[in-house]
């Protein structure tokens, strides 16, 4: 037991002088600095009393102060506080520990900021995606509507053409049916005498070249359509009288009020 404490006391006695020496060195330096400070302070007081403050612009003041500080920092060279290693060690350890804790704080703070920013980024990205989808949908709708508009102009023309064609077909079919029906039910009277006695007698009276009912109707309609100021067709012997009588009686044709040989197509609405 006894050797250990004695060794410790030896070591303590050894370190004490170095501690004391280090402290003395530091105190000397402090005294030096304090002397410098006093000198500077006196200079400042002198300068203050000389140049009475003229309340110049604050910004100008600030500018002067910052530039002079900058010059000072540029001139200054870094120097060690003291050359004694113990002092340096102790001071360095303390400084590094403090720096360590401060940097940890900074790290956690910036980490938290980063997380917050990432959240914001994600939210903004989803928002942007939604807006893009909406934009796409609207664009599609616009193009569809535009196409429909163009097509409608074109299609009106096509519709008209189609309608015209249909009407033409219908017209031609009607004409065909009309001519078939007329040919079937209203044939020219047969000169050989297959029909009734009345017809035979009439046929003998007329000339051979009778025109068919379809021919009569055609002449009537052409006269009405082409020369509508004079729609009258003169009936002559080529018109078979029973047919003209039939047309007249059924209201398809009417006589000219003054001339009984003229007929025209009745107005139809």
């Amino acid at each position, binding site marked *: 037991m006894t050797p250990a404490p004695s060794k410790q006391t030896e070591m303590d006695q050894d370190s004490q002088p170095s501690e004391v020496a280090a402290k003395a060195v530091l105190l000397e330096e402090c005294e030096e600095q*304090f002397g410098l*400070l*006093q000198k500077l*302070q006196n200079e*400042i*007081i002198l300068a*203050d009393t000389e140049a009475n*403050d003229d*309340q*110049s612009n*604050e910004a100008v*003041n*600030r500018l002067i*102060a*910052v530039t002079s*500080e900058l010059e000072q*920092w540029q001139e200054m060279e870094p120097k060690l506080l003291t050359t004694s290693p113990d002092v340096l060690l102790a001071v360095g350890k303390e*400084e590094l520990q403090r720096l360590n804790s401060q940097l940890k704080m900074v790290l956690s703070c910036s980490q938290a900021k980063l997380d917050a920013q990432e959240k914001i980024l994600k939210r903004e990205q989803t928002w942007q995606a939604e807006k893009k989808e909406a934009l796409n949908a609207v664009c599609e709708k616009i193009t569809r509507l535009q196409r429909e508009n163009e097509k409608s102009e074109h299609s009106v023309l096509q519709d008209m053409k189609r309608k015209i064609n249909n009407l033409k077909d219908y017209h031609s079919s009607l004409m065909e049916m009309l001519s078939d029906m007329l040919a079937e039910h209203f044939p020219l009277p047969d000169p050989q005498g297959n029909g009734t006695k009345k017809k035979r007698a009439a046929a003998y009276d007329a000339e051979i070249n009778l025109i068919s009912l379809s021919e009569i109707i055609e002449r009537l309609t052409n006269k009405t359509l082409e020369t509508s100021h004079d729609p009258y067709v003169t009936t002559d012997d080529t018109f078979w009288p029973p047919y003209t009588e039939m047309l007249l009686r059924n209201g398809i044709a009417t006589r000219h009020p003054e001339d009984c040989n003229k007929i025209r197509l009745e107005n139809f609405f």
Partner: protein
Amino acid sequence: MALLTPYSKVPELNTATVLLVENEEELQSKLANAIVQYEKDFNVNVRLARKLPLPVENKETRPRIDLIVFIVNLLSERSLQSVESSLAHLHSDCFLGKVCFLVTDARCGSHTQERLVSVRKLAASHQCPVLCAEHRTAEGVNAAAVRLLNILKVTAGMSPIATTALYLSSLTRCSVTSDLDED
């Protein structure tokens, strides 16, 4: 007119002095207690005042003041007015980093928002920082005390890495954003 000058006295060893100027004297004492409690490494002198100019009688015994904090209570109009009148008694060199504005009750209504804007404009014109503090709870007072201590350390020259008061004030000065930037 006796102006409060920043560098007319020699600083004391290992001490820093902060002057709290408040018209209502609500937060001053609480903040002073909190500041003194928190700082163990060096001595802190806290001096309280209602407004500037400081009484002439104490001029010789008063130490050099490192930081002047103007406490503005946004709920009363007079607070801001007294601060504005006190600013006239300050030497213009003081604004190079030795002045700070502390604002309380910044969340309590619509009038406070307008006054906050005017305080910020005032601070921005002198390029000083603005701190917001909550004085009703102990934690708010402690938080404000810690922040003030940080600034005090720099202005008293206790910050070892080359941070000067001027530099810090340039970093932390209040900037007034235009109306378009406010959200």
